């Protein structure tokens, strides 16, 4: 459920956000602020299916269908393809804001939660991947977490597997595959969205991921200009819960 945030908690949130935004600014990322809601038709082409079905949608006073943003990455891809169309890049953005999802995609998820994330547009392949992976690790370290782990896999490689094997992997059903998993196979990749690198960040104390990211080279083209893209997002509440669990 969504909840009110009261003083001690608000202070802790502000402190950790401050640490992370300082880090991202120093790394050359500029903050971008996108609207909380906008016209559904403007955004829908770039939304992966699982976000479309969980997004809050409503009609405004003129009868236009609106969407409460379920994700900020899609909005940034829209900006990059429209207002920033003529800029060649690379573009480095970070964002910090609430997103809204009606259905729980993960356990313990509020319908409204705060994401802090980055997008690196216009840097393809390993060079962009490495920059983003390093930055994600710095976010975890700067947050003050211990024993954090980043595990990665490749969505492109999974995409090329035979259908039966790919589906069993998507369901995380290794009994059906008849063999035990390699560590990289335990990551649940959204194959409609990611095209290459995919990674997840977690700590041993918690039963859920703190943040995830990867390469999605097909997204920007939907909004009018093809650009390679890679990024990540962290869930602020989960970072705070992980920190609290490690202090115990």
């Amino acid at each position, binding site marked *: 459920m969504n909840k009110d945030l009261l003083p001690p908690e608000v202070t802790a949130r502000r402190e950790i956000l401050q640490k992370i935004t300082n880090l991202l600014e120093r790394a050359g990322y500029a903050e971008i602020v996108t609207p909380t809601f906008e016209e559904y038709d403007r955004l829908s082409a770039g939304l992966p299916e699982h976000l479309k079905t969980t997004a809050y949608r409503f009609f405004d006073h003129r009868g236009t269908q609106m969407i409460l943003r379920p994700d900020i990455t899609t909005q940034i891809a829209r900006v990059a393809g429209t207002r920033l169309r003529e800029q060649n890049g690379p573009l480095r953005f970070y964002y910090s804001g609430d997103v809204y999802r009606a259905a729980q995609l993960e356990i313990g998820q509020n319908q409204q939660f705060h994401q802090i994330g980055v997008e690196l547009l216009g840097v393809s392949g390993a060079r962009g991947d490495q920059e983003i992976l390093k930055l994600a690790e710095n976010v975890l370290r700067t947050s003050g977490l211990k024993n954090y782990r980043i595990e990665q896999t490749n969505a492109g490689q999974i995409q090329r597997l035979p259908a039966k094997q790919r589906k069993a992997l998507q369901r995380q059903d290794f009994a059906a595959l008849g063999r035990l998993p390699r560590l990289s196979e335990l990551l649940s990749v959204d194959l409609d969205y990611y095209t290459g690198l995919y990674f997840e960040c977690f700590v041993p104390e918690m*039963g859920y991921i703190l943040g995830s990211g990867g390469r999605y080279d097909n997204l920007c083209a939907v909004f009018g200009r093809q650009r390679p893209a890679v990024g990540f997002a962290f869930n602020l509440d989960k970072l705070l819960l992980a920190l609290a669990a490690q202090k115990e």
Partner: protein
Amino acid sequence: MLTIALSKGYLLSEALKVFRKVGLRVPAADDISRKLEFTDADKKCRFLIVRPADVPVYVEYGAADLGIAGKDVLVEGRHKITELLDLKFGYCRLVVATLKGAYRKDTLRAGLRVATKFLNSATEYFQEKLDIDVELIKLYGSVELAPLDGLSDVIVDLVATGKTLQENGLEVVDEIYISTARLIANRVKAKSRYKEILALAQRIKKAV
């Protein structure tokens, strides 16, 4: 220490046998009747004894790292967990059954009343496989009684030997799936404690 959720009931003694085979000193099922929680003698693993349908819940939320649950419970509950191994015990089938001679698979029709504990599996079967609308009645036990007393035309239930069905004058019309016990893991713990979990899973795989 890994925490492992086990199903109370018919899967428990077989599950404990598996852990004894891999060298964990755990008590027999009869000796833990009232305990809800215990560790093996060498304090390597902690075990939770919960209702079968609750095993994947404990695992999904990370309160248990691993669990042993029937495939039937996993199919019905649709929890986001990782299925590591087929443990091959606890064999049973989810079937459609009726009073002897009342229906065949091809005479199942729209409007039938179906009594079951397995609402999701029954819905999927009638809607997606047979494409007919039926009225589902959720029951919590003694499902075999429903057609005898006119509560339903059909039941969807688990059968192991088929003996209970026979004793109640029922027969199997179709099979929906076969279920066996599975070793399951929390999706994040499977990653963050991969080495420990994989080592145990490998030993269990050799033992079953």
